[in-house]
């Protein structure tokens, strides 16, 4: 190809992809790339959670729950929530009473969670920071969890799979706050699948983290 045509072709391509051309120009002007490499400010090790939450989905009752858990963090991104236990106090919504009164439905068909226990693997691929009012920097981590749950319901024990996601906001090296949303997929009689979602806000105490 003759040089004039090459130049023309480059011109056409540059016109067609102005952002690419701009990026190339920029990299010629200031070659190289820059990253901020920092030591992680917050690292988890032995974590003890104390939280309160709700079981919000069931139309017949709402569960007000407390939860305690222990998690061991193998690395900054991988952890095992070795144990978690939840106790739920049920509050009727009134719908059950209405059904019983108006339609004579047998109360035993309504399944309620009394407590549950489980264990999960936790993966934290996200770690970041937020500027708060341009005055403070808040560090956070987001994570996904997958594990098994045993639910004690008013009709007996039920096994389940817990799938969840959460967000942790660090206060300091020892204290962080967690927001966990977990869906417990329960295999009930029938067989049928029952979803028991939970939403918890916890205070996490961290022990033994290195600097």
């Amino acid at each position, binding site marked *: 190809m003759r040089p004039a045509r090459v130049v023309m072709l480059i011109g056409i391509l540059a016109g067609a992809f102005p952002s690419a051309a701009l990026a190339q120009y920029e990299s*010629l002007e200031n070659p190289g790339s820059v990253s901020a*490499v920092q030591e*992680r400010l917050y690292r988890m090790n032995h974590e003890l959670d104390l939280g309160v939450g709700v079981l919000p989905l069931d139309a017949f009752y709402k569960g007000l729950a407390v939860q305690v858990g222990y998690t061991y963090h193998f690395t900054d991104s991988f952890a095992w929530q070795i144990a978690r236990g939840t106790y739920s106090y049920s509050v009727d919504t009134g719908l059950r009473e209405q059904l019983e009164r108006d339609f004579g439905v047998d109360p035993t068909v309504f399944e309620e969670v009394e407590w549950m226990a489980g264990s999960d693997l936790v993966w934290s691929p996200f770690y970041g*920071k937020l500027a708060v009012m341009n005055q403070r920097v808040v560090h956070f981590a987001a994570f996904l969890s997958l594990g098994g749950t045993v639910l004690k319901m008013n009709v007996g024990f039920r096994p389940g799979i817990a799938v969840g996601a959460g967000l942790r906001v660090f206060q300091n090296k020892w204290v962080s706050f967690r927001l966990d949303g977990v869906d417990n997929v329960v295999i009930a009689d029938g067989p049928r699948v029952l979803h028991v979602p939970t939403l918890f806000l916890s205070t996490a105490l961290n022990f033994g983290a290195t600097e």
Partner: protein
Amino acid sequence: MSPFSTFAPAHRAAALFGLCAAIACSWNQRALAGANPPDDAPAPDAAVSDKPDKQGAGADKEGAKPEEPAGSGNPAAAETPEAPPQKADPKLLDAALQQFYANDFRDAAPMFYAYLEGSPPTDENYAWAQYFLARSLRELGLTHAAGYYLARIARERSNPAVLPRALEELRVLTELPHDETMIDEQIFGSLDLGFLPPEIAAYAHYQQGLIALKVGNERWAKNHFAKLDETSPEASRARFALLVTRLKHAKKVDDDLIDAFYELSRDPKLTPAMKNESLLAVARLKYEKQDYEGALKAYAEVKLPPLDPGQATLYLEEAWARYQLGQLHEAMGLLTTLDAPSFRDEFLPDKYLLRAFIYRDLCHYLPAKRAAKELNRRFADSLEAIHDRTDLAEDLRLRRAAMATGGTHRAAQFLQTLELEGERLGKYAGSFGDRLFPHLVKLYDLAHAEAQRVFQERLAEAVRHEADKLLRAAEQVRLMDYEVGLKLYERVKKGAKLVTPKEEQALKDDEVAFRFDGEYWNDELRTYRFHLESRCMEDTAQ
């Protein structure tokens, strides 16, 4: 080794200038420009000699010579001669104190002034009236006027009970922009220290020691410093001042001096700013001795408050140290820091030069040329002003650089304070009446004129220094441009290969990386890591 060996002296000069600035800072903005106390000893009698009399020619005499017309700053007052003040009723002071304790300073101040005008200086409550007038004025935001009356109490010493309080108030005022001659030199620098409470005496000894150091009388300075309690913060600050002075006069830097600075940086009684200054001194001295690793260790120990952007000079000096160690990428990371908005107004011609050196050493010659020429582009107006021999103080960049540190900075701050307080005084025109108001207007007018003179004097000297710095950098740029031009057209030998790229440092387990996209976060400023592969051929690699 860089062919630009002229860099080293230039940098050395910059570092020493930095240390001189450090002295000024460490003296807590109390170094005295134009101070000329006697060589042999502090002279209390000289305290009342010069400037305050000039400043308050009329104001000084409102008690002693009440017939002195006041308020030359007020044309109306100047046109009609004022009636002499009447003799003050002793009840006036009680009424003024009542207003003072009711936090009604606006009404209290003219009453105290009326009492002073109508009473002889020998009146037993004269000093108390001055003291409360000063406090009222301070509460109203007129710190210079407050300082003036407190300084008068300290000079006249008519009431021993008031003196320590006045001195304590003055000590607090010295933390704000203030008249250095009136307060530091003529009060704290010249006090007879025999009967003062220990805290005030320590402060005064420290100040007098500083002044003795300033005029080169180290023996007298040591005499004053020896009287400080070893465990007091003043003693630590005094040690710092002595070390800086020793350094200033040292022909050769020895390790003992470096160790002494290092030891001082660990003194818990020292302020964080002074600790950092000590560490910077260690780093600069180690750099001078070509112990770049040692310099880097000292820089790393400089502690900044959370989210504080830090000092531009710290980053630039660290970048030079890393460059000397061949850590080009780390040095460039620090130069990225210096492009942050926090440092956009900093006057750092060396920054462009170092960037050009780094690109050149990585054989990216066009960016090297561009980086070097960026200096000429950015400082084109200033360079033109220097070449045209125009008034350098008129050049905005040079002026800003000159006003950024040292005595010029303090003089500018004091001038600004006077302007602000002068405007504030206008708000009290009605409340202060036709005697106190014109008197204060005159006081501020005179102080402003003197502050302006001092500022201009210091500014002229400082802009010359900054212009020298810029010219040196511009000269280096010309050399760099020439050398890079040669490199650009250098023939590559047949079969030459690119140098093996330096293995990029992998992230450690406890590290996290945020790719820089032009947005600066203060918590990241010291952590930028630059990546650029070298284009050098093996035979030309440096």
